[in-house]
Structure formats: C-alpha cells, structure tokens
C-alpha cells in the first residue's frame, strides 16, 4: 500500500478541510445573529459582559483541557477539583484573617493557596497517568470522586462560606475590571492567547500533538513523553486554580455541588472547537469558540422565550454530537 494511489487520492482535499476549520466559527456567528434578532438587549454591554464573564470559568479550564486531550489524555476531575480548590481556598482565607486581616495580602494569600492546590491536584493526576501508567479515564474518574467527596467532608455536608468582610473586599475580582472589561474576561483572554501561542508556536504544543498522535514516535524522537504528559495535567490543575480564583468572589461559598458537570462542559467545548478526542490535533482558538457557543445557547434560551431554558442541556448535547459528526466527515475526506 505504498504506491501512488494513496498519494493521489490524498493530495486534493486540503481545500475542503477549510469548512472543518471555519465550521465552529460559522456556528458562533449564526448564534450571534440569531440572538440579536430575538432580543434587542442581546448585544448590549450588560449582556455581553455577563455571557463572557460566566464563560470565563469553563473557558480557562477548557484551554487547559485542550492540551490534555491533544496529548491523548482526558481529565474528568476538573469540576470536583474546582470545588475542592474553592473549599481549601475559603478555609485558608478564613483561617488567615486573624493574622493577615482583611486586605490585599489576604486575597493574595488565598490566590496562592488556590493556584498551589490546583497545581498539586493536577500533578497528582499527571503523576498517576504518566509515571504509574494508569489509564487517564480511570485515574480522573477516581480523583473526581475523591475531590468531590473531600469537599463535602470539608464542608461537613453543608456549605463553606468566606468570611463576610473578606467576601466584600474580594468581590471586585469578579465584578470589577479594567476599562469596563471585567477581570474574568481579561484573564480568560490572556489565558486563551497564551494557550493559542503555546499550542501553535511553542515546542510544547508540537510535543503534545506528537504524543497524542503516536506516543512511540514521540519517544523515539527524543520527546520527553512522561514530562510532557505530566505537564499537561499539572497545567490544567493550575488553570482550575485560576478559574476558582475568579469564581469564589462571585458567590463567596463552596459546597459539594460546586462545579458539578464542569468537566463535561469543558470537554464539550474542546470537542466542538475541533480538537480530536483521541488526541494528536488540538486548537485553542477552537476551544474558545466552543465555550462561547455553549454559553450563548444558554443565554439565548434565557433571553428568548421560544424554547424552555430547561432544554439547554439537550440542545448543548445535540451540538456536541453534530460537531463530532462534522469532524468525522472532515476526516474521511482526508
């Protein structure tokens, strides 16, 4: 099977791939047009800020998830990890109030705790996958249960609340911003830009794709396979920490039901964006579009009263399946 046949047959369809590339973008534009035609407030400052700020949590996590999936992995634990990080962060901040008082040092300390907890939690996943060699699905299914249960335990079955004064001081991190752009949106944009750069231009992104495409080839090409794989999970953990930093000031509390199903939303966004679920190819900008598509559907259903918002999950499910079908057609044309 090494003759010209394969060569000739595969040389052409490059151009057709472009639909595969712009598909998610077209879907996003269509949703924006639909939203604007249904409700005049849709493109207003308030609504746009609301949609983007809410997208930021899932978005930041989904950027990290893009690397994990591209490298041939999966992480089901991010939702419960977020709850766990939020719980630890709140407990730490409450405990530090006597020594640090209410102020910037307290908030910075809380942020550091969140980032470190996320990094450690992600690294644990990465260690079990890369060094111990357990299937990522199994590892993260297990840690999903562990982090969720630890959160419920820390909260003693109820809710962990940030001290009222600290919450008031911390609130602006979610609600304020720079030049009218909310902080979560700014952070999300930065993470997305850095992620896109790392995926497209940096050796790390190339190594992730090589690893996801064929681990053996990567190993024989002197790619430090274990280290790259470990890094993708650690990076995702740190990004979960970052997302939690943005999330805690919104509600000021965490419970066993915080972040439920976030992992599925993040994975769905990655897949809608055109990253291949079995690894080997990923694109961060696609993930960003995937996140926006999911949030816009939710938003439009809430604004327009044509379809019940209760059907949000169903519509998102259909979109994910359609995206994968389109992806497959793009591939069979190859």
């Amino acid at each position, binding site marked *: *099977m*090494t*003759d*010209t*046949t*394969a*060569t*000739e*047959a*595969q*040389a*052409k369809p*490059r151009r057709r791939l472009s639909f595969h590339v712009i598909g998610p973008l077209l879907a996003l534009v269509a949703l924006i047009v639909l939203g604007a035609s249904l409700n005049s407030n849709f493109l207003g400052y308030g609504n746009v800020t609301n949609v983007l700020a809410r997208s930021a949590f899932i978005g930041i996590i989904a950027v990290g998830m893009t690397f994990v999936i591209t490298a041939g992995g999966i992480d089901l634990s991010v939702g419960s990890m977020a709850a766990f990080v939020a719980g630890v962060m709140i407990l730490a901040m409450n405990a530090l109030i006597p020594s640090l008082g209410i102020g910037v040092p307290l908030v910075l300390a809380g942020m550091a705790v969140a980032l470190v907890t996320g990094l450690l939690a992600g690294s644990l996943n990465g260690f079990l996958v890369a060094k111990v060699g357990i299937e990522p699905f199994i590892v993260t299914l297990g840690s999903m249960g562990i982090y969720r249960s630890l959160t419920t335990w820390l909260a003693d079955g109820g809710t962990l609340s940030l001290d009222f004064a600290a919450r008031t001081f911390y609130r602006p991190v979610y609600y304020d911003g720079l030049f009218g752009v909310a902080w979560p949106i700014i952070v999300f944009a930065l993470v997305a830009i850095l992620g896109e*750069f790392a995926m497209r*231009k*940096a*050796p790390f992104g*190339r*190594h992730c*794709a*090589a690893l996801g*495409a*064929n681990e*053996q*080839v*990567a*190993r*024989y*090409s*002197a*790619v*430090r396979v274990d280290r790259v794989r470990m890094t993708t999970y650690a990076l995702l953990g740190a990004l979960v920490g970052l997302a939690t930093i943005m999330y805690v000031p919104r509600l000021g509390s965490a419970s066993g039901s915080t972040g439920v199903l976030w992992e599925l939303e993040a994975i769905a966004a990655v897949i809608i964006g055109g990253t291949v679920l079995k690894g*080997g190819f990923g694109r961060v900008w696609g993930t960003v579009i995937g996140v926006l598509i999911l949030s816009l559907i939710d938003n439009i259903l809430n604004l327009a009263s044509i379809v019940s918002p209760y059907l949000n999950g169903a519509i998102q499910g259909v979109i994910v399946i359609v995206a994968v079908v389109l992806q497959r057609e793009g591939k069979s044309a*190859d």
Partner: protein
Amino acid sequence: MTPVLDARGITRSFGPIEVLHGVDFSLRPGEVHALIGENGAGKSTMMKILGGYLAPTRGELLVDGAPVRFADQRDAEAAGILMIHQEFNLALQLTVEENIFLGREKRRGLLLDIRAMRREARALLDRLNCPVDPATRVRDLSVPNRQMVEVARALGRNARVLIMDEPTAVLTGRETDILLRQIERLKAQGTAILYTSHKLDEIARIADRVTVLRDGTHITTRPATGFSEHAMAEAMVGRELSDLFPPKPVPGEEVVLEVENLAVPGHVRGASFRLRRGEVLGFAGLVGAGRTELMEAVVGLRPSTGTVRVNGAALRPGSIRAAREAGLVYLTEDRKEKGLLLGKSLTDNLTLLALDRFGRLSIDADAEDRALTQAIADFDIRVNDREMVAGSLSGGNQQKLLLAKTMLAEPQIVIIDEPTRGIDIGTKQQIYGFIATLAKQGKSVIVVSSELPEVIGLSARVVVMGRGHIAGELTGPEITEEAILRRAMGVGERSGEVA
C-alpha cells in the same frame, strides 16, 4: 487455457492524474503471476482494481472470459477473487474460527452452529497444513499464522484467485519458507495467485510468470524461467544497475563510540564493540539475535547495564536526549509505528527530533519551511504537495524523510536499523549512496540489516550477533555470507535462519 481473471487495457486516473496507462494482466488457474515494480509504479492501484476495491477508468475485466464490472470488493469476492492485504483484516480479539466465518456465520435456527464452523475451520487450516487451533484468539498467533488464517478465510469463501500484497514483508526467512510452500500447495489445487514482493529472490523462486510495471505502464510479461533477478531489477528501474553499492569509505583511526559490556535483560548480554570516525559498521545476525534491542539500549531507549562512551565521555544511560545531545542518533526499523507521525505534515515530522534548533520558546516557521526545502533537495524526497501528510508518501520517500529528520539533529554517529525494508531497488541504491556520503563526511554509521548483501556491500567491518551476544567480527575479505551465517548460528548448530 482461458484465464480465470483477465484485465485488458486498464487505465485509472485520480482527478487529472492518470496513474495506470492501459495495463494488461491475466491470471490462469494454478499459476503464480508476480506483479513487480518500484514504489509508485501502480502495483497497488492495479491490485485494487482486480480485487474490486477500485473501478478502472477505462479498460475491461473478464472472469472466465466473460466481461464483468465489480461495484465493490463483495462483487469480486462473489466471483472468487480475494485480496489479502499487507495489514491484515483480522479482528484480534476474536478466535481463528470466528474470524474465518466473520460476516457469514453458520446458523442453526437462531443460534450459531459452532460445531459445524469449528469442523470446517479445522478442514480449511488442514488444507494449508497449518497446525493452529481454531479456538485460539488471533491476537495470540504469530504473524505468519495470522497470514495463514487470512488465507484460510479466503479459501472458506471459495477463492479461485488470491491477490497477495507483499505477504512476506513482515515475515522472517523461515516463515517466508512456510508461506511459499503453502502457495505451492494452493497452486497445485488450481488457485491462481497474484503475488507482489520487493524481494526478487522470492519472485524468482515462486513465480511462473512475471509482469513488470514502471510509472503506471506495462513494461513486460515474461515467464519467470530465464528472467534473472538482475534483469527484473533493471526492468523495474528502467536503467542499468551496475553499481548498487557505492565504494566503501576508508574509516579513520579515532574511536567515536565505545560500547562496553552492555546487557539488556532478556535480550542482550555482554556486548562490546567500537566504532571509528568515518566508518560504516555492519551488524548482521539472525532475527531475534538482539541487534535492535542492543542499538535501542545504546541510544537510551531501553534499560540496560554497561557503559556507552561517545568520544571518550560516558553517556548518561536511559536518556535518548542525552544521546542526541552527544551526537548519537538511532533510526528505527519501524518507520510507520516508531519513526513517523503518519497523519502529520512533512514539516512536523522533519523537525520533531531537532525541534529545539528551531527556537526554544517559539518555533520559527520560516526556518522549518527552509529545512523542508533543503531536505527535499538533499534526500530527493518526491512530494506531490508540501502540505501533504507523511502517511501519503510512498514507502521509499517515507524512509528518506525519516533519514532527513534524523540528519537534521546533526549527529556524528548514526545507527540505521534496516535502512531499506520494504523499499524498491532504485531507492535502495540512493539510500546506500547517502550512507556512504555520510561516512565520507566524517560521520560514523552503524547499519543493522537482515539483508546480508546489504551488510556485505556497505560495510568494511561486520559484527555478527547470535542469540543475544556478539558472536564474531569480520573485516575486509573475510566478510562473506557463509562466514556471517556460520558465526550467527554458532558452531555445530543446524537450526536457525536469516531473514
């Protein structure tokens, strides 16, 4: 005798490109008709047309003298024509019997008639003299036995014509022998066989007739008797092949690589050898002698004990990166599974090993593009389109790309495992040229090969391995097939084979 399958004036185009130009090919009952040609000559396309996988653009197919038109391979199968692919079409988790009857299971009412299927599977395997138990899972079978199961499956579908696409590419010498004997047996039973292989000695041994294709054109169809291997090679390449091997370079004195007492648990024990600057060192041995394992251990791909010194400095064990930084690289024998990312672009493949040379933080896309241009020119890689994926290159061009990728790391020492596996003779000659040039430039090369003529033709010194240890070393005129084999098998041993 009416041919059981007759193709006349077959032409096939893909888009605007015509890849077969009016090829004739016929198969008589009970004959082995070999179809040979370089990679890209159109053999695969021709086989797919005969097997019903592709329709000809022009030309006609006749079965038993009557014109037919195959809509797909199932039509061809109904006419008794079956193709056995190089990559087998077997469900690894199912048993032999389940595979043989896959898609046409015997039933008794609603249930499967397992006893009847087992009986018939046994009968089919017996016809092939194959001792495999029908209840074994295919994943537990050796490669040649899997091939036998494929053949049994074809026979179970009443195959009168078998199309075999390089069936021996993955077999060892002994396994090849077994397969060739089975083919003789099938032939005696009246099955017509289309056979392709890059190994011309096999063709000479088994074929009744030989058809040569070159660039999609039918060159000749001749009886195999009196058609020498050399003449076949020249017909395939279309020019005289006087010097397959370039002159052997003269090595310098300086030792660049010193391996001492290297052991790989379960594979190699106490291996020591030296490599000098500008030398081409051959590594010969039987399959399973531990050559690949030794070389993988030398570059740090396998855990091992012992020392490896490059230019006198001991190499950190177990790190392929340390080896690369010391200028030592290894080119795998398995280019599809370990060498290239088949679904990725040429550039992604080319620069993967030496990616840090293209920027630590940000990869310089222009430099990568220039590197591809350079590689295409230096290694004569034939690409249709610079954006194509590596998997759509022909085998020979994949090997050249792999060579280019390895050389991009600017190594001083290159270990090449099976440099020309599955590659046509024209490309082989080019690769031999590259190897000699590397040595002339002062680099040192180790060639591991199961093809004795290759080891003998390229190297001035040959290390022979047998059963996990170094069994001998030959230099200059001592290097003969006989001397190598004697050492590889060990004195007084009769079994064993070279593949």
